[in-house]
């Protein structure tokens, strides 16, 4: 089994982990998380500015482009801790967009945009469509050549953080092949955007009608790198969503344990009943496995085959863990668990959303079977 990679860590990763743990705990108490759910923007722009100032958006951006020159290995703990506190921000979307540019962008695109992202500007991706079913290269949105550029037609869905983003990387078919294009904020018509109702209310997603959006020749990413770019986006999203899920699992278990340690029935703390205790322990055991797999994936992400196997394994385990932990958390809170005031549903909703965007555990297990069997 050791050919699947060893766990490891980097000093920088541990520094980021410790910093993110404190920052997210301090800036995203549950009251704040709930207050932001009802806000239009969905996140605190002052906190977002601080995240920019901390340099976290530049962690995996090469030094040539104004970043720290580290890698996704060191981004994972940030997403893990944000997921743990359910801190809302365009961090994950922006990190993904930056990765799309790093792998698929032209020199000019990278030189222009990456330094600004590293400074704290937001970006996002518009990949999803109504009939896409997790294959990023199946696009109905079309790019047609015009004089000096392209015009886009079709509709994107589940575009996260569209309102916050300065740049959106859009996938569209060009000559029957999926390709990526950069659309700038100024090119988005406000009437073309509709905020969608998402199950995870801490996130902001949009339907976006692209019809008539004109972009220049220079907005197209490097066509020779598209296969690599799509694959990298898929695996990066899988890794970072797994990190959010794993962090969420830790918090969800803590939240459940706290209730089991305070609520009494039949004159006993309900945590003393094995019918509740044992499933929570099972969730905790699964969480420990999830965290081991996550950090293995973070450490081995860039190794050609090991990285893919590790990332998908981490996701499968993270999905399984939070889905189970949050489901049981609702149940074990009894009548209170059925209310909006109980936080258990926030975790369950998070798990449903995160496993819906780039593939759920069954999808990744199918991919793993093809890689391993």
């Amino acid at each position, binding site marked *: 089994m050791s050919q699947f990679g060893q766990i490891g860590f980097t000093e920088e990763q541990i520094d980021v982990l410790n910093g993110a743990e404190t920052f997210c705990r301090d800036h995203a108490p549950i009251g704040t998380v709930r207050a932001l759910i009802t806000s239009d923007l969905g996140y605190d722009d002052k906190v977002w500015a601080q995240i920019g100032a901390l340099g976290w958006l530049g962690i995996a951006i090469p030094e040539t482009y104004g970043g720290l020159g580290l890698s996704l290995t060191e981004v994972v703990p940030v997403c893990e801790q944000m997921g743990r506190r359910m801190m809302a921000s365009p961090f994950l979307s922006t990190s993904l967009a930056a990765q799309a540019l790093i792998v698929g962008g032209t020199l000019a695109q990278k030189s222009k945009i990456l330094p600004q992202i590293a400074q704290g500007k937001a970006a996002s991706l518009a990949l999803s469509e109504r009939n896409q079913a997790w294959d990023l290269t199946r696009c109905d949105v079309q790019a047609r050549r015009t004089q000096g550029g392209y015009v886009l037609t079709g509709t994107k869905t589940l575009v996260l953080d569209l309102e916050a983003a300065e740049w959106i990387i859009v996938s569209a078919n060009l000559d029957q092949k999926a390709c990526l294009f950069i659309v700038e904020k100024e090119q988005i018509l406000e009437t073309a955007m509709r905020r969608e109702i998402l199950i995870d209310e801490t996130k902001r997603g949009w339907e976006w009608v692209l019809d008539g959006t004109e972009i220049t020749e220079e907005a197209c990413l490097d066509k020779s790198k598209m296969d690599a770019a799509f694959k990298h986006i898929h695996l990066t999203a899988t890794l970072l969503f797994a990190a959010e899920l794993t962090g969420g699992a830790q918090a969800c278990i803590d939240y459940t344990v706290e209730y089991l340690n305070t609520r009494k029935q039949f004159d006993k703390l309900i945590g003393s009943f*094995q019918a509740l205790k*044992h499933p929570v322990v099972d969730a905790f055991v699964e969480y420990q496995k999830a965290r081991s797999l996550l950090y*293995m994936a973070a450490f081995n992400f860039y190794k050609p085959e090991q990285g893919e196997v590790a990332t998908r394994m981490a996701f499968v385990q993270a999905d399984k863990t939070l889905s189970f932990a949050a489901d049981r958390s609702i149940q074990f809170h009894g009548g209170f668990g059925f209310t909006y005031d109980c936080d258990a549903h926030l975790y369950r909703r998070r798990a449903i959303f995160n496993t819906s965007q780039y593939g759920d555990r069954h999808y990744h297990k199918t991919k793993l079977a093809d890689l391993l069997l």
Partner: protein
Amino acid sequence: MKKTEISSEVQAFSTEAEAWFAENTPAYPDFMLPLTFMEVGTDQQFDFLRDWQRKVYEAGFLGAAWPKAYGGGGLSQAHQDAATAVMRKRKVPIMLNAIGLGWAGPLILDMGTEAHKQKYIKNILSAEDMWCQGFSEPEHGSDLGNAQLSAVKDGDEYVLNGSKIWTTHGHYAKYMILLARTNPSSANKYAGLSFFLAPMKIDGIETHKIRKLTGEHGFTQTFFTNARIPADGLMGAEGQGWKVAMQTLMYERNAKGGQAGGTFITENDPLEILELARMAKRGGEPVLKDPIIREKLVEFMIDAQAFRLNAARAQIPPLNQDCPQAIPLMSKLIHTEYTRRINEFALSLQGAKAGYYVGEPNAIDDGYWHRGYLNAFSATIGGGTSQIQRNIIGEHALGLPKTR
């Protein structure tokens, strides 16, 4: 000594072990070997494994980290771990004297007297003296703290009356680590217990073989009738038996180091089951084409990967800060349940042939997986059942209230 020097020495030791085991690992005998130390059922198996353990010890690959003065190798734990890794990798036969190597030995080295160490340690390593464990009783299994076997002090002896059960190697053992009640009227049931190193081959001790669910023998019920043991076998003070017993269980649950090394169980390699899946057919097609089977196999591979990584992460403090004891505490539960489940799954791959059993010439791998599945329960029940393990993890790692 500098770190690099140590690791180059360990590397050399590992290379030496590689060469020795390549040369000396015995061919598989014409009878079936036990998969775990708990399954030694025949004298043939016993003699084969005892000879093997002695050979490994004499070559210096067992007890390498135990003190030289008592028969160990006087090297570092890293040396022994390297040798054990070679044994695990090569899947050499298991070490027979598991209770001695993994439980009694570390305990004696931790808290025994000089005389105890001189008397017991070397013969544990050479398998000259077999050890067994007397914890469970017919009426007190999971409720171990309620054990009732009585030990009454009489001069420089204790007189034992009662019965112990599920005594692995009870029939062969020369010594037992024993939990007995020295004070039947203590207010707290735990405070009435004491812990002994006790001889087995004395008047008043009888062992009766118990037949296991596999049909084999492997452990005994042990009866004590006015059996007199020397008082100097008391470990710790009278009344501290529970604490000492918990310490030995920590060795057993891998939560504390100090074991002599070697492997006590044959670990299932998920890739081994892949071979089975490649051969197995269903409806004329390889079962490997069945999407449900594929999903299950991937799940087993993820699990195997996860607990391999858990062990590695446990060595990285910054990635464990929330609950450092969690991974060691859950290791027994995870491993034993995994073994049970993967063996069970192996049966489902065999189609009609899953209906055969050990000894039937048409059985796949001579019933290896059948025996593995049934025997797997010895580990999900013994040493604290999986249900008790969940209580322990819940109470000690998560801080949940006690279940009583």
